[in-house]
């Protein structure tokens, strides 16, 4: 081998020179993966798997394989119970509105699956949920989103049956039962730790069994449990014998962190990983890889699924140029969104009209309910002409004061897709005489400072990802404009203020009628699309690469990842695959 390596090294320069004209040799991974083991590559870092403090996307992806939450969303965006036996609603009578005359709230009865157990065989009960709720509310624990716990005022456990309890909520909201992010913590393992370190900031996180003893089977309630955890490197999962649901087909899952997408792909082709999760290849890469899979009949399937992540441009309404609605509309008209997604994404990421995803039950494309801007440079030019922007010979527009129509376009530095889109947009707007300057901040600066303090001046591009049927309050309400008065909270970064919309979001929360909610949402959408505080661009698609013989796999397209159904994944053997393929034809 080393001789070969030496000879190869000597030929390096030569090879490098002619590489461009050499058609890369096809590299076939040895054999199809089997149910014995599946190796998944991800590019994003993960932290330890304590569900209550985890905040990284990759961690939630992995956690879905080893832990369960109270309820879940299936691939068709239907809410289903997961650890619970049933979702309590007002209709089925398990939940009721309660009032003491002053305030109104909801009480709901939850029953935990009778077979639900921790990985060490200990039964999983309401006590575990009550414990996690306690921990979540602790001031010394760095829970990312405390609202999950704060909305519950108390949990009353049935003294006779610890699997049965009543959640007492603080308010009467129609979506009280959306507990897909409420995870249990194993009280029998974690309570001693918590009690020992409750007084010390971050004491619980630092000493939790998830940190100190992450391979303890009792920490996990999902179809798999962790047998080996190398932070920043890999994680090895094995079937959990105590899992209460259907038994998983694949015996062992290895998740490897390969932070570099190029290396990830090389590893996939070299066969050292079998599959790339959604948190893997860049979209561009997936697209190129899909072409290659087709051309060379590689034993992979490249999956594309439009998701909830909505890429858009925020227009800073404090900018004097953008305060003029004609300018904003001109900017929308000038963008060929369909052209953009066709050109850059092979049409696999759908163009967006507004903030709701097509998978959202509230989604609409009805021109009567929203304002749709079809690409027209002429309309855009006309609007700018009207707004008093005149062409000059340098190819840009100027106003009466001689100011050039110059806007700063910001996004997160290092995000290649966004940078591509940015350049595309810059070019499109140049066509209507707008001088767009690109200025990118690293993500943490962009979100932590630039957006939060609304320092972006002109246009900002980023994405929102929200669960279905989510009240858009934090994006559209005038109370959500970040500022001194509200402690820089809220995500209404454009600074859009519309009194009617403010009313509508309040009504939306209080409405327990599905039909009425739909109307309210569509009215918000109408204002939103008509006044253009935000230019929708496209919905991000999630992509993954799976081995051709993997069945039972589907990207759900919402924030509960494909890993939620990991127990259904199955790797067909060669014979079955042939049969399956002929069936498909």
């Amino acid at each position: 081998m080393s001789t070969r390596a030496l000879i190869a090294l000597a030929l390096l320069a030569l090879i490098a020179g002619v590489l461009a004209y050499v058609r890369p040799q096809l590299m076939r991974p040895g054999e199809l993966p089997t149910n014995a083991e599946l190796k998944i590559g991800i590019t994003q870092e993960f932290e330890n798997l304590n569900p209550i403090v985890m905040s990284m996307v990759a961690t939630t992806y992995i956690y879905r394989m080893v832990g369960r939450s109270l309820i879940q969303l299936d691939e068709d965006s239907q809410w289903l119970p997961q650890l619970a036996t049933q979702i309590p609603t007002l209709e089925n009578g398990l939940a009721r509105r309660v009032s003491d005359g002053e305030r109104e709230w909801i009480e709901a009865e939850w029953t935990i699956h009778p077979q639900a157990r921790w990985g060490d065989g200990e039964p999983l009960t309401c006590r575990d949920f009550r414990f996690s709720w306690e921990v979540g509310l602790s001031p010394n624990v760095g829970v990312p989103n405390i609202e999950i716990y704060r909305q519950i005022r108390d949990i009353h456990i049935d003294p006779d049956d610890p699997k049965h309890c009543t959640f007492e909520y603080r308010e009467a909201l129609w979506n009280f039962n959306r507990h897909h992010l409420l995870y249990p913590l194993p009280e029998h393992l974690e309570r001693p730790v918590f009690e020992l370190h409750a007084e010390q900031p971050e004491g619980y996180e630092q000493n939790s069994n998830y940190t100190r003893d992450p391979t303890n089977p009792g920490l996990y309630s999902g179809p798999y449990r962790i047998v080996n955890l190398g932070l920043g490197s890999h994680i090895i999962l094995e079937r959990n014998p105590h899992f209460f649901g259907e038994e998983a087909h694949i015996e062992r899952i290895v998740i490897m962190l390969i932070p570099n997408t190029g290396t990830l792909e090389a590893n996939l082709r070299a066969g050292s990983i079998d599959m790339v999760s959604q948190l893997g290849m860049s979209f561009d890469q997936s697209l190129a890889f899909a072409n290659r899979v087709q051309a060379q009949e590689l034993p992979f399937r490249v999956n594309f699924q439009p998701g909830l992540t909505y890429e858009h441009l925020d227009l800073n309404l404090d900018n004097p140029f953008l305060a003029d609605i004609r300018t904003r509309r001109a900017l929308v008209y000038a963008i060929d969104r369909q052209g953009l997604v066709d050109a850059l994404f092979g049409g696999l990421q759908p163009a967006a009209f507004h903030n709701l995803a097509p998978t959202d039950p509230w989604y609409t494309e009805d021109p009567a309910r929203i304002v749709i801007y079809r690409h027209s440079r002429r309309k855009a030019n006309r609007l700018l002409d009207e707004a008093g922007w005149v062409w000059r010979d340098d190819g840009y527009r100027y106003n009466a004061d001689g100011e050039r129509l110059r806007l700063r376009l910001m996004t997160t530095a290092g995000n290649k897709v966004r940078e591509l889109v940015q350049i595309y947009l810059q070019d499109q707007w140049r066509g209507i005489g707008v001088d767009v300057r690109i200025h990118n901040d690293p993500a943490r600066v962009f979100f932590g400072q630039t957006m939060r303090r609304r320092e972006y001046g002109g246009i900002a591009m980023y994405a929102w990802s929200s669960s279905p049927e989510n009240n858009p309050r934090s994006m559209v309400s005038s109370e959500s404009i970040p500022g001194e008065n509200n402690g820089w909270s809220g995500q209404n970064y454009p600074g859009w203020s519309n009194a009617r919309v403010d009313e509508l979001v309040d009504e939306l929360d209080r409405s327990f009628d599905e039909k009425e909610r739909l109307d309210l949402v569509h009215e918000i959408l109408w204002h939103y699309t008509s006044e253009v505080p935000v230019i929708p661009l496209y919905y991000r698609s999630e992509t993954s690469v799976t081995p051709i013989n993997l069945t039972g796999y589907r990207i759900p397209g919402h924030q509960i990842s494909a890993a939620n159904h990991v127990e259904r994944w199955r790797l067909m053997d060669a014979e079955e695959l042939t049969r399956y393929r002929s069936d498909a034809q």
Partner: protein
Amino acid sequence: MTAYILRRLLQTAVVILLLSYFCYLLMTLMPGDPVDEMIMANPEITSADIDRLRALHGLDQPVWVRYWNWASSIASGDLGYSRTYRVPVTDILGPRLLNTFVLAGAALLVAVIVAIPLGVWAALRKNSTADYVINLFAFAGISVPSFWIAIVLILVFAVYIPIFPAGGTGSIAFDMTPWESFVDRLKYLVLPVLSLSFLSIGTYVRYTRAAMLESMGNDYIRTARAKGLGWPRIYLMHGFRNALIPLITVTALSFSTLFSGAIITETVFAYQGVGQLVFESIQSNDFNVAMVAFMISVSMVLLMNLIADLLYGVADPRISYA
């Protein structure tokens, strides 16, 4: 000698202390903080949550207070807690440090083994074709962007001629014998080591050649010849023995370069080392990890400087550390 080492260690400690404050300051000058990571991951986080988390992590304090807290906890042996991985820094750093040492050590070894004979050869055959070729090779070594050579190596040896893995630290498997896992690790090391040692090879070849030329031009070489000694003895005991002195310094001092190189190499090859960790932790504002890794690397460099000086004294009897 002992007094000298003690004095140097003391000086080094002072420098490390000052540098640590400088680095801490630099880190905090970077906009954003660890909580911003959470904000990015979770768009529904509220401002109240952010402030709560900031206070929890002590991020609302002035820089020097935070530095003081950090420094005193470091002094008490607690290296802190990684906010990215949510584990103690030692847990995440330990194995990575080992990986980087393996990588850098192997690269250094390869570089020395390859470069020194080449440099000596070039010096002894000055202005010959071999000298030109070796020189060109050395210049290429110091001129090539390390990430690019890494990409090309991947392209050639992992894609076109797939004999080495494209990246990673080792295969994840249970059923390997120690020998198999050793070979496996070795396979994963080949490309990163090649790309990392390339630069060092260039540097060392140049220095070896220059040092050897200088040494061979000295009067004592003539003396050695006049004594009737054979060529091997003249080259090795007289020529190379003296060329070694500057080389030792260069090698020890190249540690800093090697560390910087490791960041790129580890990033491109997804090699789980400190370099990559430093890059990631800076990117994700994981101050504790970044600072500790940073301080380790600075201390390593300073320590290597000290070792270089001491070795210098060993190699050159004219130096005394009174």
